[in-house]
């Protein structure tokens, strides 16, 4: 299971649809100050379910939508898609089946018509793929409109935020996981309080 591609459109300074492929073992992102490199990291955190505007360096969540520039009008919506390769495995995985809590999701991820969504995530049905979706490629998308509506999609089907989190359970992937080190935060683990350090280790347990 490999992160193969990132597509941004209308997200922060990426006004136009922009594609990043990640085919190499080490991919570098370079460019002068202020050109949009850290916005790429924010995009990945956002599509993985980040809900705090502050941790995306904004004032409000709507700040992730392209705000306009000297030559362009502000954007109407932001969309980010992550594409993962999800090939069949030779040896099936033994997955814990988590209890699915039945408390209602917060409204932000309700389907625009308000219907509840039958998750594409078949945790126990799909044992021969790392991501529990029966497809060779898994695309996770998040969208946000200027009027505040937002939605998550997995392979084109609307899902809840909980489905996205469940999709990545136990993979080490998450919007605040130890595998995303933000600018200026590399020594956060050293500066943290001993008890906070514990919770980072618990996440990896």
């Amino acid at each position, binding site marked *: *299971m490999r*992160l193969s591609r990132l597509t941004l459109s209308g997200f922060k300074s990426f006004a*136009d649809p922009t594609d990043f492929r990640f085919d190499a073992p*080490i991919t570098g992102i*370079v460019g002068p100050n202020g050109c*949009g490199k850290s916005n790429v990291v924010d995009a990945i955190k956002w599509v993985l379910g980040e809900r705090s505007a502050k941790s995306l360096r904004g004032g409000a969540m709507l700040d992730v939508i392209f705000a306009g520039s*000297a030559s362009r009008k502000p954007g109407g919506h932001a969309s980010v898609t992550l594409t993962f390769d999800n090939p069949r495995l030779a040896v099936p995985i033994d997955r814990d089946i988590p209890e699915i809590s039945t408390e209602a999701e917060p409204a932000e991820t309700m389907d625009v018509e308000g219907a509840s969504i039958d998750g594409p995530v078949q945790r126990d049905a799909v044992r021969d793929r790392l991501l529990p979706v029966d497809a060779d490629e898994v695309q996770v998308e998040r969208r946000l409109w200027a009027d505040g509506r937002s939605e998550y999609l997995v392979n084109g089907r609307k899902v809840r935020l909980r489905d996205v989190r469940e999709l990545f359970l136990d993979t080490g992937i998450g919007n605040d996981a130890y595998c*995303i080190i933000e600018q200026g935060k590399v020594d956060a683990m050293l500066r943290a309080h*001993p008890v906070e350090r514990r919770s980072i280790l618990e996440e990896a347990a």
Partner: protein
Amino acid sequence: SRRRFKATFEAVRDQFGGQEGMFRRLFGGGSADLFLVPMENGEIDWLESGVEIRAKPPGKEPRVISQLSGGEKTMTAVALLMAIFRSKPSPFCILDEVDAALDEANVERFTKALGPFLDRSHFIVITHHKRTMQACHELHGVTMAERGVSRRVTVRVDQVGADGRIREDALE
């Protein structure tokens, strides 16, 4: 659960401070350790105790990690991160200018340390350091040729000027 945390803690501790651990690999020697902080009653509680870090670069005797230099702190943090990564690899890892405080010799050690992880994960590294760029297999340039609007271009290391600017010839 307690059992799982203990197993992870022991594994990370060894990957961090062990003889072959990431600390000694990044510093070329020295010693480091992780330990649980006893509770008020003096006992260690596997479910509650916080985690303390001890790090001694070769030939030095810092009492607390706050005495380490900016670059030493970065290298210690990267060593710990890699130790966690070794005991629970995730498919990808994104590093946004983690090399900002490093001198060239440490940038070299940092990029070399990524090698052993490439069979299970891949890295996305944002950097201004030429040496780190040279360690990348592929480079994406981001430019704002149109002010305020980001665009991606494919670049080779030799097309990135000393000033991090992407030279004209790469901007198709």
